[in-house]
């Protein structure tokens, strides 16, 4: 085939595809907008165009099928036939077949169109009226005329005339003109296209096109002169071509048929808006029309991709230029302005080029209407699809990757989400289910939502399904929230359908959907209400072509990690240590365990062996999970142009592309999702481990304390550490005896002195005593007194940061916000000191032998640090505070201490390890070490003994601590008898006492 012809054919195929793209939504719309003349015309024109050109190329089947469709549309146009569902279905089938023919255009003549043709013909026959020849608004020719002319050796021409341009403007009348033509030869056929005229308003202005076929003895150049029209408007045809009906596109002439532009942002393609819409859909569908055809030009996608690349390189070049010329620019007059100019122009260029790649999402949304329509019929359900935001523009590449996942989601909604009408009725819902597809730009991202008002997701069902399929363990699912249960859907191999309808497939979908979305740097979220419906939200970055990244180094090479995945960067070493949990390397980050992957190990690079502990961890977020990627060197953050991977490397999951750096070297772009997969990170396992750690309570790293919260008067809230509480007694107010100034209560064969907070602390006094009061009996004090309170609110676990400066006074340790309320922390020691100075003064008198002693305190929990600090102050010690084991170790190197007071559970180096280090050190091994714990337990004591701890103390027991310190620093070493094992569940049966 000659070159030009194949180019023409390609053009025909492309154009036809565009016609078919518009045809489908138009046909769908036809059912509900039967009398929309413009719609009918547009459909007619589309089919007509395809028919015409196909004749020229000898594409018989395409010609035949489109001709039949055209006939049908022509009848509709004349109101001789009314489009109903049967007709629309037949036309849709025809359009589908046309598409198949167009797609395989070289073999289209061998393909079978019988079924579709018969269907359409059936609709045509049996209809009264106008004969075939005159109803076709195209041309149809009497074969005998052709034969006659051919024998005579006449020429055949197809002529295009424009009534204004060629006739009126030249001062002629049509009557005269045609008389003239008839004198030149034999009219074979003719017609005039009046579709351009809409109504009275534009009637006079429109230049109508008239087409006729003529046979004549005149040669072409004579015809040109005779007809007085441009040469391009006369096409000479062979007899065979004349025999094929249809307007021909002369080679030199641009097709006058409306060219649908490459991107039609303003034209909504949705035919089916819900009835609630005030404006009829038809009114919104203005025809693309001739005017728009002149504003656009068709461009190959490959060229746009190249442009995109080049623009990207230009941006990077501009960035470099600006950087390197910083210093020079100052010295060269006018240079600054020049650079500014280049910079602005480059940005503008890039932005505009990016826009060429933007396509309205409507381009892929349109097909869903058809899918839903077909599925509704197949499934026997009534489903309405509402599309919103089709004009929202996406980068072409993003759009292409969205198509499949969205299709899957929509199918799922229709198949599993929306209930059959009977079920809906029972549930009191409207019979027609609604699926809403919304696209919008939100904060630099693109967001697509698929919402349905169907039956929603049943968490219990999801859980049991997952367990059944062996995808999750029963005990895990039991603990899951509903939200977590929804995410079970994303597990590979999941399908909630009772039976697998072949409509939406075998449950292979959702995990693939999520992977694909995440590969694009996006995310997908699910929310649902049982019985009400489900909402799926997809988020995607605006463009894939230029992305900001973090450049990391590995030996000589560099790698780029897209910023979109990076949550934070942690410097390893010191507090941030790599630990091993169940054989996996992890990092503790704010109470959670972060699985780690080392880049050099992952790549199997030769540069391993570097000390991972001293590098950086990029905390990467992949879907709901996080992990850390260990890299040695952290370089710049840079914007790079993404270049796709060649097919040889596509299988490497760890890369998502490559890029050329500023110095011309190639760098690989890392794929966080792929890396997580390759490293086979066990997120679920570690999640559990993290949770288990959190629950361990006393070994906890976070500042969670067990508190008893209570009230004395009004709303004022107090708290003390539960460790300090021995019992809470509920007493009758009248059982309290007054002896002098003091109040006493009979308590276990003896009397217990009671004190009131407001007597000694700057707090409110209750109005009157209620019938019952509560008495808090403390532990860890020498001469216990009962603290009277009016209401015990709760025993809670809470993280607190104690403010010691805001509220001060006797009995006040500090204040903090607990469960949203400002709470005063009671200092029992100072309170008791104020209430019973005699007993407590004794203690004071016995000045500890601690003056001048230098103590090092290692405690990572701020709350306890504050308390211990206070104690040490009272003991008159000289002391330093270290926030963790490592700091303490370093401090020990720098100064000389008399004693180490250390917490056990600390990040980095814990108390035991610290002690071991000390015992192993030549210079330090005689240092007395007192270990602190919130609650003592036997196993710790044992461990401590082995590590070389001298004594074990409870953090809040001031007196014992003081005694121990005195004892040790006074010269006697050795472990005292074990502290009374406190029991977390010792007493608190708060159900009885919780009040108010």
């Amino acid at each position, binding site marked *: 085939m000659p070159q030009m012809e194949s180019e023409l054919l390609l053009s025909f195929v492309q154009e036809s595809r565009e016609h078919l793209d518009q045809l489908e939504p138009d046909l769908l719309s036809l059912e509900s907008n039967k009398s929309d003349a413009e719609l009918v015309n547009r459909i007619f024109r589309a089919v007509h165009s395809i028919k015409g050109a196909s004749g020229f190329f000898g594409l018989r089947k395409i010609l035949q099928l489109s001709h039949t469709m055209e006939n049908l549309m022509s009848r509709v146009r004349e109101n001789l036939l009314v489009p109903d569902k049967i007709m629309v279905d037949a036309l849709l089938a025809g359009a589908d077949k046309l598409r198949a023919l167009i797609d395989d255009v070289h073999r289209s003549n061998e393909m079978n169109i019988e079924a579709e043709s018969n269907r359409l013909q059936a609709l045509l026959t049996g209809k009264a009226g106008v004969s075939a020849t005159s109803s076709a608004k195209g041309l149809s020719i009497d074969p005998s005329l052709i034969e006659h002319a051919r024998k005579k050796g006449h020429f055949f021409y197809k002529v295009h005339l424009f009534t204004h341009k060629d006739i009126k403007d030249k001062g002629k009348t049509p009557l005269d003109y045609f008389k003239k033509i008839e004198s030149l030869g034999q009219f074979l056929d003719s017609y005039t296209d009046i579709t351009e005229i809409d109504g009275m308003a534009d009637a006079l202005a429109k230049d109508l096109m008239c087409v006729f076929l003529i046979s004549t003895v005149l040669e072409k150049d004579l015809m040109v002169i005779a007809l007085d029209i441009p040469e391009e408007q006369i096409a000479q045809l062979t007899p065979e071509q004349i025999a094929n009906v249809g307007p021909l596109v002369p080679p030199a002439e641009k097709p006058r048929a409306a060219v649908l532009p490459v991107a039609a942002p303003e034209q909504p393609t949705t035919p089916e808006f819900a009835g609630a819409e005030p404006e009829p859909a038809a009114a919104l569908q203005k025809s693309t029309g001739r005017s728009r055809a002149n504003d656009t030009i068709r461009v190959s996608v490959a060229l746009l991709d190249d442009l995109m690349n080049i623009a990207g390189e230009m941006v990077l070049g501009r960035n470099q230029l600006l950087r390197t010329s910083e210093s020079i620019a100052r010295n060269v007059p006018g240079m600054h302005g020049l650079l500014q100019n280049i910079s602005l122009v480059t940005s503008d260029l890039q932005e505009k080029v990016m826009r060429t790649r933007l396509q309205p999402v409507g381009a892929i949304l349109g097909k869903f209407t058809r899918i839903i329509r077909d599925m509704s019929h197949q499934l026997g359900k009534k489903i309405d699809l509402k599309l919103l935001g089709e004009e929202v523009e996406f980068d072409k590449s993003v759009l292409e990757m969205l198509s499949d996942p969205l299709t899957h989601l929509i199918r799922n909604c229709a198949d599993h989400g929306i209930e059959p009408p009977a079920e809906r009725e029972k549930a009191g819902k409207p019979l027609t289910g609604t699926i809403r597809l919304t696209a919008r730009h939100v904060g630099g991202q693109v967001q697509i939502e698929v919402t349905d008002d169907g039956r929603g997701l049943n968490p219990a069902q999801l859980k049991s399904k997952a367990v059944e399929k062996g995808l999750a363990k029963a005990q895990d699912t039991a603990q899951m929230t509903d939200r977590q249960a929804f995410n079970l859907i994303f597990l590979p191999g999941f399908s909630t359908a009772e039976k697998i309808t072949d409509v939406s497939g075998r449950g292979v979908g959702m995990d693939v959907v999520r992977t694909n979305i995440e590969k694009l740097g996006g995310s997908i979220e699910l929310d649902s209400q049982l019985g009400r419906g489900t909402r799926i939200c997809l988020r995607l970055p605006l463009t894939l072509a230029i992305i900001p990244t973090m450049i990391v180094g590995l030996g000589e090479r560099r790698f780029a990690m897209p910023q979109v995945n990076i949550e934070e960067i942690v410097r390893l070493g010191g507090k941030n240590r790599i630990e091993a949990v169940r054989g996996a390397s992890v990092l503790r980050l704010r109470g959670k365990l972060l699985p780690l992957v080392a880049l050099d190990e992952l790549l199997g690079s030769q540069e391993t062996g570097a000390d991972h502990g001293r590098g950086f961890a990029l905390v990467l977020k992949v879907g709901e999970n996080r992990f850390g990627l260990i890299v040695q060197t952290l370089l710049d953050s840079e914007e790079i142009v993404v270049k796709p991977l060649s097919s040889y490397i596509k299988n*490497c999951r760890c890369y998502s592309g490559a890029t050329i750096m500023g110095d011309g070297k190639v760098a690989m772009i890392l794929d966080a999702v792929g890396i997580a997969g390759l490293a086979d990170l066990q997120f679920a396992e570690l999640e559990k481990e993290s949770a288990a750690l959190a629950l361990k309570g006393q070994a906890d790293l976070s500042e969670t304390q067990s508190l008893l919260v209570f009230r004395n008067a009004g709303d004022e809230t107090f708290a003390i550490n539960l460790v300090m509480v021995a019992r809470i007694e509920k007493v009758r107010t009248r059982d309290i005896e007054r002896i002098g100034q003091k109040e006493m209560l009979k308590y276990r064969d003896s009397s217990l002195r009671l004190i009131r907070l407001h007597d000694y602390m700057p707090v409110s006094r209750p109005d009157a005593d209620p019938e019952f009061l509560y008495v808090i009996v403390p532990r860890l004090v020498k001469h216990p007194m009962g603290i009277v309170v009016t209401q015990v609110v709760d025993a809670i676990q809470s993280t607190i940061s104690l403010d010691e400066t805001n509220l001060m006074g006797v009995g006040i340790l500090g204040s903090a916000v607990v469960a949203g309320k400002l709470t005063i922390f009671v200092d029992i020691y100072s309170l008791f000191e104020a209430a019973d100075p005699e007993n407590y003064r004794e203690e004071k008198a016995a000045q500890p032998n601690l003056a001048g002693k230098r103590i090092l305190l290692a405690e990572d929990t701020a709350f306890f640090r504050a308390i211990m600090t206070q104690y040490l102050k009272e003991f008159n010690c000289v002391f330093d505070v270290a926030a963790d084991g490592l700091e303490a170790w370093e401090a020990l190197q720098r100064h000389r201490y008399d004693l180490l007071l250390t917490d056990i559970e600390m990040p980095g180096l814990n108390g035991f390890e610290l002690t071991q280090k000390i015992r192993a050190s030549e210079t330090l091994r005689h240092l007395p070490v007192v270990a602190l714990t919130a609650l003592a337990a036997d196993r710790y004591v044992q461990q401590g003994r082995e590590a070389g701890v001298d004594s074990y103390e409870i953090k809040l027991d001031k007196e014992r601590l003081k005694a121990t310190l005195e004892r040790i620093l006074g010269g006697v070493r050795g472990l005292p008898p074990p502290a009374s094992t406190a029991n977390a569940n010792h007493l608190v049966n708060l159900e009885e006492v919780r009040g108010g």
Partner: protein
Amino acid sequence: MANRQFITFYLGDDLFGLDILLVREINRNMDITKVDRAPDCVRGLMNLRGQIVTVLDLGVRLNIGARPIGRESSCVVLKTKAELGRSSHAGLDAHSAEDLTGLLVDRIGDVVSVEEDHIEPPPAHAGGIKGLFIEGVVKLQQQLLIALDVREVLRTQGESTP
């Protein structure tokens, strides 16, 4: 009489050739970035005036051993499918890849003109490589020229599996 021109090059002592119509250029730049975890035949990626070329180690691909990079090493950069598709030679684009690909060779030889009917069908083996990769052989004055079947050389390992 139809004539074909071949770009020739050496792998070790053996002389190989490709149809000149398939070749975009010959590049002496050896700044190749290694790609870990890529298949063995992929030597790495190279920057060719702003475009990324995937450099294949021809020795690995032909199973005669990876090529050490020496002073005379070169990269034969092939035309892409798109470039060949635009030319007027029917069917040539089957002998190319979608992406820009280059072949790493030891030393470049001369451009050799060969008459079509002097090209003999491939033997089972030649130059130590399987007949699969050979389109044909030509007896030149001094030695045997092995014309490579580029389509086979460029074939990727089947469909990707994640």
